[in-house]
């Protein structure tokens, strides 16, 4: 090879080398801008609460896709890192430890349900993380964590606010009821609900004639309903999870429960499949809910969201309508996302301060948190099932079947009392 060519090759090599170094330096910087923001969480994707948990995840993914379509957060795409906690509280601490120490997520949100949120609290508190939470009852009562934010609109005093509406409705009736039966599953959420009901009963001067709990795996609820019936209560407040809610409703029908007001804190009566199966057995029951397709609750964006959800839920073996958890799952991420954009950083202290200060516009209306992370004003709806036809899912997609009785500003109809003819 001639000297000239050697020289040229040498020069070419040097130029290439310089270019390579330049790219190497520029490379990571360019990638830095596109580095995704990771939001980590555990979710009940199997086990007793999975029907709602999986539906919530679909709602959350819709939020992620909506946000990414508009360029992400702070110009960065949003990614989820999540694991199935199988509705088992024992799995939660391990999952959050992994999310924070191994997956190194930037932000965390909670799983679904009181039992699954509480175990994560010590970990997020130690790391001083902002913790938007999805439907846990009075979780922060014991922890008093100032960076906890609960999207469920229980209200500033969650344990009692949760059932206050049920009592206010009952006491507005004539003749005024005097006795109450309280029954709950032996599980954190239901026990909290029952404790609140007990306090409310005492506050409103009602005599508690039955106050018991049952093991969650109970098969037959007929003896329980008969025992309640034997005490002749005017009103019956139940705190239960989906299988027991179904069991109690069926047993109440079979026994012919003669109370004047029945329901209260039954999880599961908001799920489409259960509503369809119970059908007319639901008529008259007054139960809690957080969003129903009544004309008084048409928040901006919610119907658009539900349409997207309905599409995304097809064939996934989850609630086809998605009225209960998904809008709030979308909303708790909206709160987080809007805060990130508002403070222009992922600094947990700044985010927490913003979340306490601001009022958020979400698909479930305006959201404002109080000092303890619960909603500043309670918005537990008490709805009464009416005119429910047998074996019909579509009837629940529109108004008229779940009438909002309380609070006044969302009311869409008047109560039918006593609850059964």
């Amino acid at each position: 090879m001639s000297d000239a060519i050697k020289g040229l090759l040498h020069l070419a090599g040097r130029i290439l080398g310089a270019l390579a170094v330049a790219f190497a330096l520029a490379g990571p910087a360019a990638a830095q801008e596109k580095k995704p923001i990771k939001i980590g969480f555990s979710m009940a994707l199997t086990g007793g609460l999975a029907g709602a948990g999986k539906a919530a995840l679909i709602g959350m993914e819709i939020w992620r896709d909506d946000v990414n379509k508009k360029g992400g957060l702070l110009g960065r795409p949003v990614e989820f890192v999540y694991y199935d906690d199988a509705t088992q509280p024992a799995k939660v601490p391990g999952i959050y430890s992994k999310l924070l120490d191994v997956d190194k997520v930037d932000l965390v949100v909670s799983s679904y349900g009181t039992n699954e949120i509480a175990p994560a609290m010590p970990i997020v508190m130690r790391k001083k993380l902002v913790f938007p939470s999805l439907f846990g009852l009075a979780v922060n009562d014991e922890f008093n964590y100032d960076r906890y934010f609960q999207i469920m609109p229980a209200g500033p005093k969650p344990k009692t606010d949760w059932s206050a509406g049920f009592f206010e409705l009952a006491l507005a009736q004539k003749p005024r009821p005097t006795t109450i039966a309280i029954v709950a599953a032996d599980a954190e959420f239901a026990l909290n609900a029952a404790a609140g009901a007990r306090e409310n009963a005492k506050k409103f001067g009602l005599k508690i004639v039955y106050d018991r709990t049952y093991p969650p795996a109970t098969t037959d609820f007929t003896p329980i309903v008969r025992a309640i019936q034997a005490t002749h209560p005017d009103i019956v407040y139940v705190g239960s999870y989906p299988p027991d809610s179904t069991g109690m409703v069926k047993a109440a029908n079979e026994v012919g429960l003669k109370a004047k007001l029945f329901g209260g804190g039954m999880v599961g009566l908001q799920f489409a499949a259960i509503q369809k199966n119970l059908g007319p057995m639901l008529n008259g029951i007054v139960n809690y809910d957080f969003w129903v397709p009544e004309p008084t609750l048409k928040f901006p964006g919610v119907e658009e969201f539900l349409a997207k959800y309905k599409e995304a839920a097809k064939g996934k073996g989850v609630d086809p309508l998605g009225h209960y958890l998904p809008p709030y799952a979308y909303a708790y991420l909206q709160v987080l996302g809007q805060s990130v954009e508002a403070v222009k950083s992922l600094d947990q202290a700044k985010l927490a301060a913003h979340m306490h200060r601001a009022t958020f516009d979400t698909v479930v209306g305006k959201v404002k948190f109080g000092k303890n992370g619960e909603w500043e004003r309670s918005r537990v709806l008490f709805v009464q099932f009416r005119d429910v036809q047998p074996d019909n899912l579509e009837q629940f997609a529109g108004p008229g079947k779940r009438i909002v009785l309380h609070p006044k500003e969302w009311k869409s109809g008047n109560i039918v009392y006593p609850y059964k003819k």
Partner: protein
Amino acid sequence: MFSFDLLANGLVAGILLGGFYAAVAIGLAIAFGQLDIVNIAHPAFVIVGSYIAWILNSRLGLDPVLIGVMVAPVFFFVGAAIYRVYYAAFERTGQESLSGLAFFFGVMFIIEVLLILVYGVDYRLVNAGYIGETIEIGVVGIPLRMLVPFLVAAALTAGIYLYLSRTFMGRAILAVAQDRLALQLMGADPVRVKQFAFGLAIATTAVAGALLIIIGPVEPSVGRQYIGRVFAIVVLGGMGSIPGMFIAAMILGIAESLVASFMGPSWAPAVAFGLLLLTLAVRPSGLFGRQ
């Protein structure tokens, strides 16, 4: 808060519930009680039965009990096949106690996960004309939702009991439980007999699953709630005894029901298992077990 009404209703509810428990436990009474196979996946098979009842009920509108009976032969062959694998891998080599148990744990998890993948995790329920209806006899109300499972369970138990005591194969099954070597000397192949018996045990889960979903909603992990109960019933009744199993199921159902009526439902499991411990302390082989 005692009243005759409540007592009568509690007893009846307990008997109906006990009948249902018997339907769930009878397969295990054969597999565990007679063949000493620790089939911890038994309740998982019951859940498969529930799902099949659900899908055929919602697509074709067939009665769940009918579905259970129709599908039972399929479950029989599945059970026989599983026994073949279990025998070849564990029983033949004498490792059935620990490795066999691990095998059935694995089967249980695989079943659960497959159900989740195929059917999703939402609760499933069935529709039938008699769900929600109640017959009133005096002060006692009998919900058909509990009566139908009881009647089916009683028929199933009676049928299996008669089969085991009257037919050749049935007696061979009882024999292999008592003395395997003697059975071999009599000219019957113990492996084929056990295979048949295990198939029969799994066939009952098709029916039990249909009964379960008539009574209440089902999702893939519900089976785990029954593991403790079914083993307790088989042990309490006495290993190898079908009538014992039925009586034990009754005792459990009645105890749960009366405790729920009078003391408070949260005591029900404590009382039920307390009875089990008490019985085993006095009669270690169970109520009707072989000594």
